[in-house]
């Protein structure tokens, strides 16, 4: 480190070699404080705060321990002081004492722990803070009369440890799982303890006891009963409770055979001991529970490591326009910071809780509440994530960072659920019910047989059968396969709503395309304006088109880059027709010929967008967009599965499209959103499984109607909850690959079913013939689940490699 000081004489270092004293990042622009280099004002500020409070030991524990700091506005955490939110976050609250736990992802080293546990030196209102390094949390006790919650959040953010505040159930879920793990370990401990001791007391029985010490055997047997009771009442409660619940609902689930087996074994043993018939099978009983729980624990660990929890990769990168200096640039939502200014256009979703900067706006919260009547929001009021803007574009200041999971949970709202249930789910439910009855039947028959052949074996055999037959591997196959598929698709920029979509995708036999923005590019167009417009009028059109998210609007908006600062009033967008609004009191309409009032016969070879100013048609833009790369090859591979191309535009592109598409494909132009929807429902009446690809704006009806509706986007993700998936524009050419991968998912699920069924059948045959003890059965059962989970995970990854990497790369 010493060589980094400026006066150390070593000036040959380039600036890139100098590492920030705080965060260790290479410095582009050097700042010096106390002879120490800093990469930015943020890092320097943290150092100043720490050195002023004599907390520089922070830098002695680890080298460059800090994280780069982004600017935090003073209001960033004000919402934490809202009583409602406060209540959610605080673990304990009174007038002079409160406790809060923050999740701080930036915790990574010894210095972090040290600094965060010395917060009381930064502010006297903080009483104590304690870090849990493993969970990356800090628990802070503070005095609410001296420091507000928002001030604490800002304080720790200002020293580089921004807390991640999640008001969803997400954080709660994590602690819930931890406590579940804990109770499992406790149950396991008790079972293990009892199992060990029961075995100890059974030793004389194993070795053969002198008949003269029969009294001792009695005592041991009674001790065994005592030791088994905690196992029966406490350790195996998962199985008992679950079986009891299913019994109460007059149903039968996969835990029922296990519970029956356990109770049979215990009851029979107690009976044997009480009547003095024999020592019973309590060693088997306790051992069985012990191994079942070990299996369960191991199973949980395996699931965790293979978890298909939707990590951020399987979420679509929804983007919004963020203000950057003088311009607006698209940014992925999870890169939004508090205090960022964003612009939201008509029909776009508000990505994060934010404050309205404009005078008023109408927000449709139907995705959140189901109530479709737009709500009026006034300047300075809070707009919640998930609302959809109706009308003029608005500017907002981000108040609260967003989480993708929140938006996706909106996406999965009941309202947008396709009515049909997952086929496999239904199949499994049905099978599980029947399966359980079959198992009980087999058990009864072999019980009767063994009662006649060898009565001493009956109870052990019955228990083995009941335990080993557990069909849980069967139930795991589909969720694990589809969960992994979701992740694979996400990696390849196809973001699906949920696992059921994959199942429907596998069945697709008719694909319908939209033209603009789907088959053709959303950018690099060739635009010609025919007619006359003054620069001022061009500015009006520029502003008006900027309000819309339609691909053509976006193209024209980009093409006319003059005229900033106009304001459009009474903006309206009529899907499939056009947009209109008043600029400087003059009505401007942009859209189709009929919409703008142009009634003459008109032929052109490209998409046309007419402009009418003050009720007078002034000319039209001809927009020719290039066809996306590799579309033709993809269409060739799709073959006759591609049934139609529906376009809202005029027939202008007919020649180009007819060479592009297969001859069998229907090419329809001048289609209104309603026509598209109608076309798709017609296909469905012919028992076709339809997939529709569109821009998600004009086609939202059609996307919703289709069995699989995919919205194609280029830069800005227009969030349409009606669709089932979002596909990045440049991956349209890999559509056939995605379809075949979805098909292979069905194959994998079937193979998983066969695998687990075979496993069960073999194990069952061993159990029925009396070659399996209950203990081995208890080990085999969770093993089969783990086998299936590993199989599906590996199979999905192999299939993904085979289908995707070849041509998508």
């Amino acid at each position, binding site marked *: 480190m010493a060589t980094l000081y400026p006066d150390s004489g070593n000036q040959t270092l380039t600036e890139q070699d100098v590492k920030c004293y705080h965060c260790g990042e290479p410095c582009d622009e050097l700042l010096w404080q106390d002879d120490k280099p800093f990469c930015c004002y943020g890092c320097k500020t943290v150092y100043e705060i720490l050195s002023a409070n004599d907390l520089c030991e922070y830098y002695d524990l680890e080298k460059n321990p800090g994280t780069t700091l982004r600017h935090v506005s003073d209001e960033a955490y004000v919402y934490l002081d809202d009583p409602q939110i406060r209540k959610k976050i605080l673990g304990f609250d009174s007038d002079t004492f409160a406790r809060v736990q923050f999740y701080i992802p930036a915790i990574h080293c010894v210095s972090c*722990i040290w600094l965060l546990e010395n917060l009381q030196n930064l502010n006297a209102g903080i009483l104590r803070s304690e870090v849990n390094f493993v969970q990356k949390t800090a628990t802070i006790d503070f005095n609410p009369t001296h420091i507000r919650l928002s001030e604490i959040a800002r304080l720790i953010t200002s020293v580089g440890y921004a807390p991640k505040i999640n008001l969803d159930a997400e954080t709660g879920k994590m602690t819930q799982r931890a406590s579940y793990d804990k109770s499992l370990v406790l149950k396991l*401990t008790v079972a293990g303890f009892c199992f060990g*001791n029961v075995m100890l007391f059974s030793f004389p029985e194993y070795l053969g006891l002198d008949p003269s010490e029969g009294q001792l055997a009695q005592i041991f047997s009674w001790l065994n009963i005592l030791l088994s009771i905690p196992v029966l009442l406490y350790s195996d409660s998962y199985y008992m409770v679950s079986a009891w619940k299913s019994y109460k609902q007059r149903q039968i689930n996969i835990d029922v055979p296990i519970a029956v087996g356990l109770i049979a074994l215990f009851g029979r043993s107690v009976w044997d001991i009480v009547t003095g018939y024999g020592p019973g099978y309590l060693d088997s009983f306790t051992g069985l529970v012990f191994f079942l729980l070990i299996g369960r624990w191991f199973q949980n660990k395996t699931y965790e490591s293979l978890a298909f929890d939707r990590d951020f990769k399987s979420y679509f990168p929804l983007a919004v326009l963020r203000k950057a200096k003088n311009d607006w640039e698209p940014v992925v939502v999870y890169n939004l910071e508090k205090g960022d200014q964003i612009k939201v256009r008509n029909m776009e979703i508000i990505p994060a809780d934010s404050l309205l900067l404009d005078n008023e706006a109408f927000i449709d919260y139907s995705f959140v509440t189901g109530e479709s009547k737009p709500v009026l929001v006034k300047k300075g009021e809070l707009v919640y994530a998930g609302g959809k803007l109706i009308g003029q574009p608005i500017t907002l200041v981000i108040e609260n960072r967003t989480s993708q999971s929140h938006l996706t949970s909106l996406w999965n709202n009941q309202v947008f659920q396709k009515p049909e249930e997952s086929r496999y789910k239904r199949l499994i439910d049905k099978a599980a019910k029947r399966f359980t009855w079959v198992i009980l039947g087999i058990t009864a028959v072999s019980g009767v047989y063994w009662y006649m052949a060898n009565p001493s074996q009956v109870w052990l055999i019955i228990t083995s059968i009941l335990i080993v037959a557990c069909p849980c591997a069967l139930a795991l196959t589909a969720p694990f396969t589809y969960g992994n598929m979701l992740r694979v698709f996400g990696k390849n920029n196809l973001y699906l709503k949920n696992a059921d979509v994959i199942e429907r995708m596998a069945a697709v036999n008719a694909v319908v395309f939209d033209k603009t923005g789907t088959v053709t590019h959303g950018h690099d167009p060739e635009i010609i304006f025919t007619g006359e417009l003054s620069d001022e009028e061009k500015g009006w059109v520029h502003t008006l088109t900027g309000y819309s998210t339609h691909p053509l609007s976006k193209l024209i908006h980009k093409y006319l880059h003059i005229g900033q600062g106009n304001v459009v009033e009474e903006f309206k967008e009529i899907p499939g027709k056009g947009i209109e609004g008043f600029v400087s009191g003059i009505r401007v309409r942009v859209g189709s010929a009929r919409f703008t009032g142009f009634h003459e016969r008109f032929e052109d070879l490209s998409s046309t967008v007419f402009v009418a100013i003050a009720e007078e048609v002034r000319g039209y833009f001809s927009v020719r967009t290039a066809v996306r790369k590799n579309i033709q090859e993809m269409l060739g591979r799709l073959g006759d599965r591609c049934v139609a191309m529906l376009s809202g535009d005029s027939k202008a592109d007919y020649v180009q499209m007819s060479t592009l598409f297969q001859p069998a494909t229907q090419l329809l132009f001048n289609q209104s959103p309603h026509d598209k929807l109608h076309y798709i429902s017609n296909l469905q009446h012919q028992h076709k499984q339809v997939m529709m690809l569109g821009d998600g704006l004009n086609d939202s009806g059609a996307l919703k109607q289709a069995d699989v509706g995919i919205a194609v986007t280029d830069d800005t993700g227009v969030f349409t909850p009606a669709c089932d998936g979002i596909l990045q524009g440049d991956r349209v050419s890999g559509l056939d690959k995605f379809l075949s991968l979805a098909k292979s998912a069905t194959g994998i699920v079937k193979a998983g079913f066969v695998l687990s069924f075979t496993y069960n059948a073999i194990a069952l045959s061993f159990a029925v013939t009396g070659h399996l003890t209950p203990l081995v059965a208890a080990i085999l059962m969770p093993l089969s689940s783990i086998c299936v989970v590993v199989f599906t995970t590996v199979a999905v990854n192999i299939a993904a490699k085979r289908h995707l990497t070849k041509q998508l790369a």
Partner: protein
Amino acid sequence: MSIIVLLISISLTIAIIFLLIFYWSMKSGQYDDTYTPSIRMLFEDKKKEKKSSAEKKKHST
């Protein structure tokens, strides 16, 4: 023979005590965070010591 019964009851009692101790330690969260406490005990409490250790570190680097 009665001595066996006595011994068994003693051993079982002790074993149960150990079980209860483990149960308590698990419940009271002693296994929740197995890393931070080991670091925390190494932090210096007094300012004087802190400075000297800081200097030491500077010299060594």
